[in-house]
């Protein structure tokens, strides 16, 4: 079978490419760690070694550490509450968003009914709705999850409709000429084909979920990192504020990382320039 050889070679090349590639990724990863260390060092230097900035305006690492130790139990509680709200609203909101988006691109009637509503609501910053949500749903979990879920929903609806529109028609035609009916084409061609473009929507939605959840917590809550920031602000405890911000950024990083790992796992077929 000499005719297979070019293909075999190309596969082999790809594999050998991967090992050099892995080395490149390692050194790039080292750079990333180095940046984080450098930022931390710079922070330490400007606040402790040569205190250029008063600790009230920008707390030093020891200040933040002290706040962490002082608040250790309640900070864990607040972090968990915020993360719970983010994850719930993100998963429910984006799930419903994808489902509605699929329905809209599947049926012209559903599209005609929902598109004006979504297009009218989409430009409204959900943050502007917080007073109403507090009025309607109080300051508990529900209103916050609903607000942040609404934001995620909007991102994913639009993302899904656009992604479906961008599915190459040749795949749909190929499936049709192999005997697939429209419903089967949807399940076996359209849905798998849009997953890669949904990933970017998921990442945007996750970041938005953090923003909206914290904003809602700032405006009225009894728990969560946003609530902690609000309380600390009243007594000028900037170390607690900075601590909350750091924890938020760590949580957001892990969520984003999880989305990336998960999406790589569900699309092993994707051609990737680099394995991020």
């Amino acid at each position: 079978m000499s005719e297979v050889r070019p293909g075999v070679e190309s596969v082999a090349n790809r594999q050998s490419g991967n090992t050099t590639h892995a080395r490149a990724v390692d050194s790039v990863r080292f750079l990333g760690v180095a940046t984080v260390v450098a930022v931390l060092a710079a922070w330490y230097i400007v606040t402790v070694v040569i205190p250029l900035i008063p600790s009230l305006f920008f707390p030093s690492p020891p200040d933040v550490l002290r706040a962490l130790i002082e608040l250790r139990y309640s900070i864990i509680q607040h972090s968990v509450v915020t993360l719970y709200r983010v994850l719930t609203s993100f998963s429910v909101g984006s799930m419903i968003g994808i489902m509605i988006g699929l329905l809209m691109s599947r049926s012209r009637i559903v599209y005609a009914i929902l598109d004006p509503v979504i297009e009218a609501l989409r430009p409204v910053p959900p943050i502007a709705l917080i007073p109403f949500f507090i009025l309607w749903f109080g300051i508990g979990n529900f209103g916050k999850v609903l607000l942040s879920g609404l934001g995620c929903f909007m991102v994913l609806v639009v993302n899904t409709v656009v992604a479906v529109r961008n599915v190459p028609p040749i795949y749909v035609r190929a499936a049709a000429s192999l005997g697939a009916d429209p419903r089967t084409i949807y399940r076996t061609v359209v849905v798998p084909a849009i997953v890669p473009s949904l990933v970017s929507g998921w990442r945007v939605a996750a970041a938005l979920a953090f923003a909206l959840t914290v904003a809602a917590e700032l405006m009225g809550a009894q728990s969560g990192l946003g609530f902690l920031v609000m309380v600390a602000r009243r007594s000028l405890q900037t170390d607690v504020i900075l601590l909350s911000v750091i924890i938020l950024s760590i949580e957001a990083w892990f969520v984003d990382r999880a989305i990336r790992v998960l999406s790589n796992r569900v699309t092993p077929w994707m051609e990737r320039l680099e394995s991020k």
Partner: protein
Amino acid sequence: MPSPPKISFQDVEVVFPTRGKSTVALQGFTLDIRPEGFTCIVGQSGCGKTTALNLVAGFIKPSSGRVLIDGCEITGPGADRTVVFQADSVFPWMTVRQNVEYGPAVRGIDPGARRRVADQLIAMVGLAGFENHFPRELSGGMKKRVDLARAYANDPKVLLMDEPFGALDVMTRDRMHLDLLRLYDEHRKCILFVTHDIEEALFLADRVVVMTARPARVRAILDAPFPRPRDPEIKTSPELQTLRRDTMALLGKSGEPELVEEGVP
């Protein structure tokens, strides 16, 4: 004793609206395709060959006239008319085996049977060992083989090929020709193959339909009188080259050459 035609174009006209004015892709197009045999349609780029194929595939409908398969009017795409496109249409999210099994799977063939068919066809196109690879791990020629195997696994009444090897390099294309002929000799399935490459048409087909420039009609139908299985030497034989010149002349006569983009709706 001529058997009834497999596919029959009856006075077909196809008009595409393009930016205000309309383009007539086919007009008075009448052609019968025999049930057994390999038919190639050749014509200049943009003459409406692909339009003719898309009519049989059911992707478009004629503006007037009728297109029949086994005497029944074609109303939409169907598993009895599988298309192999020029562009890569192998599903990238499926492995080689999943791709080849796709047709049988959506038609509800049981997993054991479709796996047997798929494995046999994958081996026939020389991809044994690549069953669980994703298309991104394959070369262009290998993907085309997957496409061929996928079309054959569906066991359609007629295979429609729209310049399937047009995007491949010459050497890969020559190998693909032999692979396709091997599949053809094994299954003797009715093939309708569209190309602008006269040599390819004469080497592969039993009958070569030469089309005029747009709006396209049938200018002539030639026989490619070469024995099967076909020897690669035929490509360079004087007979084929003579036929090629004749065909060229037929194509050249078809009015002013219009090099327009292929009329895809």
